[in-house]
């Protein structure tokens, strides 16, 4: 589904990602883990088209992404939940969801898509008319995820969705991600919460100092304390 080859990326003047290569298979959850500053966020920003200077190759569904602007990548079925959520604070929850549908396939009706989201996220259902910024951090995170999935993308890139969220919601989110995968959506999950991420994911890639240092089945890695300690311990 997504094939990253020899990716190099710069954040301003600093070269952050050095020749990263890995692939995400269709219908799997891949956890991209590593320490703070390892290059995880830079990697998925490169995939989404949000950085100025990127080299190498990123292919999505067989097509090269790097020459395309971000909005064209979204239209190919690639959705993104940024680390800082970036819901539009002074719009209502319903309007934020509508933003996710702006470029959606015309076969997706707004009312039924919103109903479906409301069913998946009971917390948002009660708050559709509420101004988004008045919700709790966890609810805003749910909204950011809902906005990314409402147009039924082929793949969703998630940047540390569990960060700063209360444990009950994190559990709920884990169930949601598995359900999405079971429906055929591919997920690339960037996480610092390693235990939780390995619990959800099918496979995992560890990056350290901008390079891939380990990849394996999530279950294998979950049992390998030594590798986890070496590359993920804070």
């Amino acid at each position, binding site marked *: 589904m997504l094939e990253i080859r020899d990716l190099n990326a710069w954040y301003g003047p600093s070269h952050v990602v050095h020749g990263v290569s890995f692939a995400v298979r269709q219908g799997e959850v891949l956890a991209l883990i590593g320490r703070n500053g390892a290059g995880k966020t830079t990697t998925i920003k490169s995939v*989404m*088209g*949000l950085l100025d200077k990127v080299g190498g190759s990123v292919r999505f569904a067989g097509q090269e992404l790097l020459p395309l*602007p*971000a*909005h064209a990548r*979204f*239209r190919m079925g690639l*959705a*993104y939940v*940024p680390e800082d959520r*970036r819901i*539009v*604070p*002074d*719009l209502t929850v319903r*309007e934020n969801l*509508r*933003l*996710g549908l*702006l*470029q959606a396939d015309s076969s997706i009706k707004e009312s039924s898509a919103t109903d479906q989201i409301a069913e998946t996220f009971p917390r948002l259902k009660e708050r559709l008319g509420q101004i988004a910024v008045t919700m709790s951090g966890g609810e805003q995170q749910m909204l950011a995820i809902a*906005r990314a999935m409402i*147009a039924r993308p082929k793949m969703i890139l998630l940047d540390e969705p569990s960060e700063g969220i209360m444990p009950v919601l994190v559990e709920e989110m884990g169930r949601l991600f598995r359900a999405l995968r079971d429906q055929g959506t591919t997920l690339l999950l960037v996480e610092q919460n390693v235990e939780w991420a390995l619990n959800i994911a099918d496979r995992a890639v560890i990056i350290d100092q901008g390079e891939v240092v380990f990849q394996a089945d999530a279950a294998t890695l979950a049992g390998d304390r030594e590798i986890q300690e070496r590359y993920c311990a804070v």
Partner: protein
Amino acid sequence: MDLQLISLQLFSGIALGAILIMLALGLSIIFGILGVVNFAHGSFFMVGAYAGVFFLGYTGNFWWALLLAPLVVGVLGLGVERLLIRPLYGRPVDDPILLTFGLSYVLVEGVRILFGTDGVPFDTPAALRGVTNIGIGYFPTYRLFVIGVVAVVLVALWLVLEKTKVGLIVRAGARDPQIMRVLGVDIQKLWLVVFGIGIGLAALGGVLAAPMRTVNPEMGNFVLSEAFVVTVIGGMGSLLGSVVAGLLVGIVVNMTSLVAPEMATIAMFAFMALVLLVRPHGLFGKPGFGT
């Protein structure tokens, strides 16, 4: 000084405010979404007035002039965004300021070459001459018309912003243009359209103002600073702020000129200072906006 005079002056203030709103809306929306402080905005207002003069002469019909001038100048705005401003995105904020500042001189000189340095007359259309009794006294019909046109434009803009997909994109884009890209919005297209609409509104202000003041190449200079005052009072990037502040500034200027005409301009700036003391981001502005 009686109550009737005061209320008529208040009404005059609203008519002036209506013109300022047309300018401030464009300035504010262009800043909010493109991050560009458009110093050529007053010149587009002036070009709008001259386009009105041209189309009035060409068609002999005020209504055609009122319709065509904003459209044609709006299209000119599209060209300016595409050819001159687009290459400057991602550069420091001073670059588009310098560009639009220079462009304003080019527009003024261009009009001087085409239409001469002297002012040209713009007759009030026959149907809108004279005065109308508005209950509190007689008021120039044309000014009533200006207030009406601006009200209609505002309602139309409000409907577009609140009820349409484009409106939602503009509202969200004004708050967070970057996130719109990952939701599939071609942000460059949005910038183009917004700039064109902002310029079209300024030109509409210019045609509407033409019969009320002299049409000359410098008519955009002072009105630009008035429009800046309005956007600052209303809060940069806030459309509601532009409307409310436009009316307030129009009223403050007119009421002051009733008692001390020479103080009108100072009163406007004093009002701005007062508002900023109480609300540093303007009446409807948000902290950190546009940075």
